[in-house]
């Protein structure tokens, strides 16, 4: 899904189509793969309900990785509170959509509306988090975000009148259907929307400012970039989409508990996917998320005697990638493309 390629046949319909794709952040190959992914659940064995669920999990993780990489890959701050922000969105949406009277209040709004309320709530907290981490660099900012995440999780655990705490709550579903397929298309649409919006942002001058701040704050400031503005904007937008995805989670699974949703280990899952996919590309995590979910689910079902093995695998893969190939999968892809191009040039 890279946008660096240039095409000579600009005048033709195909050329126009390709340059449109490039504008919204897709290469023809990336777009082709996306279409295949969208059609996948119509073919056996991918049409099996449990595999559609895997695909949903894949898209959910992929979309998270995109929103996560928007911060980690560009302004170089690891948001360890990411899962907590997502959980905040999920709970906000769940509470506003709630119809059962056991909670403090039961507004019973439409979940299609409340997911946006959840997103706005998470965005607001992201805004505050951005301001809190302003003066901090690298690891200190990450730790601050982590603490805020822990505090959020503590709140959700203890505001039992709203959230039922560790007992968990059961938000209404988007649609009452035994089928998983509609949910696959909902999350796929969310993923594509998040990707396109964030890609447009990082492709603009705002993205240039993000990269400058992430790579060298002093030189960025000396070039006239106000770090405050961009950092807070980045955190807000990333948190907004995290909250939106939380809303999807709430109204898809129909069950929320703080520890399965907001725990730091959930952030680490996303971090692993985003880093293995390659930082600073946005699409790297997407390509990794799907095979990864399949791999992990396969392990889970075949090695059920070893619970938690997938976390070990996350760890080992992360360490290996960080040491031997920090550029991740997207870095490998760009490297290959550059190699192929020079080979073609030589043969001409």
């Amino acid at each position: 899904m890279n946008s660096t390629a240039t095409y000579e046949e600009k005048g033709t319909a195909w050329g126009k189509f390709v340059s449109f794709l490039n504008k919204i952040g897709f290469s023809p190959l990336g777009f082709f793969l996306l279409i295949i992914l969208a059609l996948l659940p119509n073919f056996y064995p991918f049409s099996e309900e449990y595999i559609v669920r895997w695909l949903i999990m894949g898209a959910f993780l992929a979309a998270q990785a995109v929103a996560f990489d928007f911060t980690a890959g560009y302004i170089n701050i690891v948001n360890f509170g990411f899962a907590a922000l997502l959980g905040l969105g999920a709970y906000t949406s769940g509470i506003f959509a709630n119809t059962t009277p056991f909670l403090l209040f039961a507004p019973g709004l439409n979940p299609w509306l409340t997911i946006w309320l959840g997103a706005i709530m998470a965005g607001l907290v992201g805004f505050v988090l951005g301001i809190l981490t302003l003066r901090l660099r690298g690891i200190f900012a990450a730790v601050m975000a982590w603490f805020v995440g822990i505090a959020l999780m503590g709140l959700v655990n203890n505001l039992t009148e709203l959230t039922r705490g560790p007992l968990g709550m059961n938000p209404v579903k988007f649609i009452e259907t035994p089928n998983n397929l509609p949910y696959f298309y909902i999350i796929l649409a969310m993923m594509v929307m998040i990707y396109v919006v964030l890609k447009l942002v990082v492709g603009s001058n705002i993205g240039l400012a993000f990269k400058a701040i992430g790579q060298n704050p002093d030189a960025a400031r000396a070039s006239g970039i106000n770090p405050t503005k961009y950092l807070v904007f980045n955190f807000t937008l990333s948190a907004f989409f995290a909250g939106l995805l939380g809303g999807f989670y709430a109204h898809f699974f129909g069950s929320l508990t703080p520890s399965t949703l907001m725990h730091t280990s959930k952030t680490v899952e996303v971090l692993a996917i985003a880093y293995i996919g390659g930082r600073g590309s946005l699409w790297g995590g997407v390509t990794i998320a799907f095979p990864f979910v399949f791999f992990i689910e396969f392990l889970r079902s075949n090695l059920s005697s070893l619970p938690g093995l997938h976390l070990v695998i996350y760890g080992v893969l992360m360490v290996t990638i960080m040491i031997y190939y920090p550029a991740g999968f997207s870095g490998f892809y760009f490297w290959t493309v550059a190699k192929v191009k020079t080979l073609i040039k030589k043969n001409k």
Partner: protein
Amino acid sequence: MILDTKEVTKRFGGLTAVNQVSMQIEEGEIFGLIGPNGAGKTTFLNSIAGKFPPTSGKVFFLGEETTGLPAEVMCKRGLARTFQIPRPFPKMTVLENVKVGAVFGPSAHGLKSAELRAQEALEFVEFNLPIDTPASQLNAVQLKRIDLARAISCQPKLLLLDELASGLTPGELDSMMALIKRIRDDGVTIIAIEHIMRVIKGICDEVMVIEYGTTIAEGTPDEVLNNPKVIEAYLGEEEVPNAGA
């Protein structure tokens, strides 16, 4: 007068790095700032360019007080700088590095696109590698050129150069000196921290010497370099030849 500092002082805890330095700079000059290592030259530049505010004293830039304004505001007001150890954006290409200055530097954009202005700045500093080279592949001298190009594309009125000429071969030194003069001829006032006497004599209109954070001499390069205090600061006290021995 483009820059006027009044008794600028910067303390770090108990250490006074810059002690009551007052400096007046006229438009269009190349002003040299020299002194032994650790004398406080870079700290002085940092406190006028907004990296940190001075502990006391006042800074007037273009007739307005700018004491303690942050670096990004100073940049928008027309003050750009290069870094002693060039600090580019390593994961960007050469062009993107310079584009950062062109996009965010000037408060008023001309009609030309930022990309075009960045390309012009690169041509101006005679950077002759492909502009899509990643900055991480450049050597120290090339990094200095793109750092300079980045600063120029901020379209400054005052440019602070921190040891731009150090580490260059004699041949490179000549072209760098010519380049600095050309920047001045384009209407940019320059303050340059330098160690190399040839550069100071070759380009500076006026020179100030700082030792232990305090101004010890000011004047034309020839005056200053013959000042006994300055010679002492650089070379140590002159031994008095004993005629009777």
